[in-house]
């Protein structure tokens, strides 16, 4: 059935009350949340001030809030830009200094998913950034153990956006009964039916009008009802870049690369041998305009490889011998967008 999901934060309100720290407001920034949760964790001896699920999807919304555009003007993916780097640098620093639960990210290898929901349920995390789909689980598992609530996505300089996700009802274009199919779709999309559906299934509405009016969620408990209403209010804050990212068919490629590389940054595996610096190609970001020289060099490649960026300076002997296997390996220079593959997606 049609529904929306949205990423955002949950907070353990009881811990805030115990620590006598005021809950940051709806427009609070990530830095303000980090500061407040650190105080709470310290006062209440809670293990982790913050936690965020180990997936590139979860950090995409915050990155967009910091100005990441994800796509270039021509619509091609351009994941790594200043906004993206700013947020990732913050995350890595927070994981290193203990503000963010490092365990969630470094206890896994590759791009494996890991959430911190159980840590939040156990009262070991003050602020947990996940998504609306956790609401039912928390309502059931936490019960009366402590008060919790949904606080949405913290703000950055560009937005206060989470990442949307959804389920939709569709009809096949080749259906033998297009009129009947359209009627079914209209029925489920109509305001009263959709409102009743999302209320009964405890989901976030995929209908702007219903979201604006608000829903009662009679079947949900007080905490669940409040949380679902909060999620519905947050839908309006989703940035256009977040929708574009959701709709991109290969977005998992970006998410997986983010997960792997951020984890490597946390454990210090991206440092260059000797100087402790990230290698040039990583710092610059391909196609950022600083690689004109390399791209021009690649223009000399044999035809099948012409136009590809990133010629390796060290060539492997069979390649340089024949000239046929010119070592140009990345995406086409003509289509490469700023930072589209600043790190290889090995």
């Amino acid at each position, binding site marked *: 059935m049609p529904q929306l999901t949205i990423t955002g934060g949950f907070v353990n309100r009881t811990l805030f009350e115990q620590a006598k720290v005021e809950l940051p407001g709806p427009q609070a920034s990530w830095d303000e949340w980090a500061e407040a949760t650190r105080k709470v964790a310290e006062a209440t001896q809670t293990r982790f001030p913050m936690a965020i699920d180990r997936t590139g999807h979860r950090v995409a919304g915050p990155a967009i809030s910091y100005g990441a555009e994800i796509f270039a003007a021509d619509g091609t993916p351009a994941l790594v830009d200043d906004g993206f780097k700013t947020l990732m640098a913050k995350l890595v620093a927070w994981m290193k200094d203990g503000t963010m639960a490092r365990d969630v990210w470094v206890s896994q290898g590759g791009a494996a998913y890991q959430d911190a929901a159980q840590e939040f349920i156990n009262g070991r995390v003050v602020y947990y950034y996940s998504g609306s789909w956790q609401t039912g689980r928390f309502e059931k598992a936490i019960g009366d153990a402590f008060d919790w609530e949904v606080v949405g996505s913290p703000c950055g300089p560009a937005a206060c956006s989470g990442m949307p996700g959804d389920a939709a009802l569709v009809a096949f274009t080749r259906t033998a009964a297009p009129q009947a199919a359209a009627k079914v779709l209209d029925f489920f999309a109509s305001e009263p039916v959709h409102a009743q559906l999302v209320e009964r299934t405890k989901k976030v509405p995929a209908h702007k009008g219903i979201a604006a009016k608000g829903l009662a969620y009679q079947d949900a408990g007080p905490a669940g009802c409040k949380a679902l209403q909060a999620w519905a209010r947050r839908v309006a804050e989703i940035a256009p870049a977040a929708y574009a990212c959701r709709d991109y068919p290969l977005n998992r490629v970006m998410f*997986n690369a983010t997960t*792997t590389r951020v984890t490597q940054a946390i454990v210090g595996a991206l440092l*260059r*041998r000797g100087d402790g610096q990230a*290698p040039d190609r990583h710092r610059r970001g391909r196609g950022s305009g600083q690689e004109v020289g390399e791209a021009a060099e690649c223009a000399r490649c044999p035809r099948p490889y012409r136009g590809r960026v990133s010629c390796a300076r060290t060539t492997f002997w069979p390649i340089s011998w024949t000239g046929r296997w010119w070592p140009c390996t990345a995406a086409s220079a003509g289509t490469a967008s700023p930072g589209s593959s600043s790190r290889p997606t*090995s």
Partner: protein
Amino acid sequence: MHRRIGRNRFAWIFLPPNLVIFGILTYLPIALNFGYATTGGLAVLATERPFVGFENFASLLDCRDYLDPSTCSKDLFWRALFNTGRFVLLQVGFMVLFSLITALVLDREIKGRGFFRGVFFYPVLLNPVVLALIWKWILQREGVLDAFIAAFGGEPILWLMDAGWSFFWVVFVSIWAHTGFYTLILLAGLQAIPKDVYEAAEMDTASPWRKLTRITLPSLMPIMLVVIVLALIKGVQTFDEIHVLTGGGPGSATMPIVQYIYETGFAVQPRLFGLAAFASLLLAALLMVLTLLQLRANRTSYRG
């Protein structure tokens, strides 16, 4: 029937079923692997994949400095390769040493010899996934080891979240799991050494150290060679234990080459079958060299 069609031809009646099974399940996938290794794109069907020749090969070997994975286009491949190299060197070296020491001790007339032989061999009976899970419970945050340390007033250590420690534990668990198997082989080798040689040495008042270095170790060398090559092959193939224990993490600190191939081809999007296929061909070449070494070692061992 045996007489009618002849002794040699009789074998051909039984061969076809096996040839079909091996053909479909072994040789066809190998041929497909060669095919996929020279193709690119994301399509699953070979017919829909564009031919790219050796581009996957060039991509895997595109590095500025082969000793620094950060400078490589496919840096995870090189990290996995270095991890596997380090793992094999440490694991095989220490495992063979421990196996030898254990075999030497268990070869002596000590009390409870049968019991100790069972104790050392027991981990070999366990499924690699089961033993990795057991060690994960021991080593994870608030695991058994941390509880033990805390009970003595120590500070818990994040064993599996530090690159150095997690690599240490991956090697340790692997040694613990496989030492029994190689001990058994070396024990058989020790028991095959004729006792009269030792008796002659004793009559010549040779010291225990001299007997070890001049009789035991030289006699055991052919078996030792087989053990080393077998352990090398097994070490290069290691995947399941590490995958369960650390998942190749933290980051890529313990990712072995087999996991890289698995993740590149199947687990992580985009599924780069061509790249994974070429990486697996390189791994196959490495394993073939090791297998040839093993065959040679076996021949040496057979000749004595």
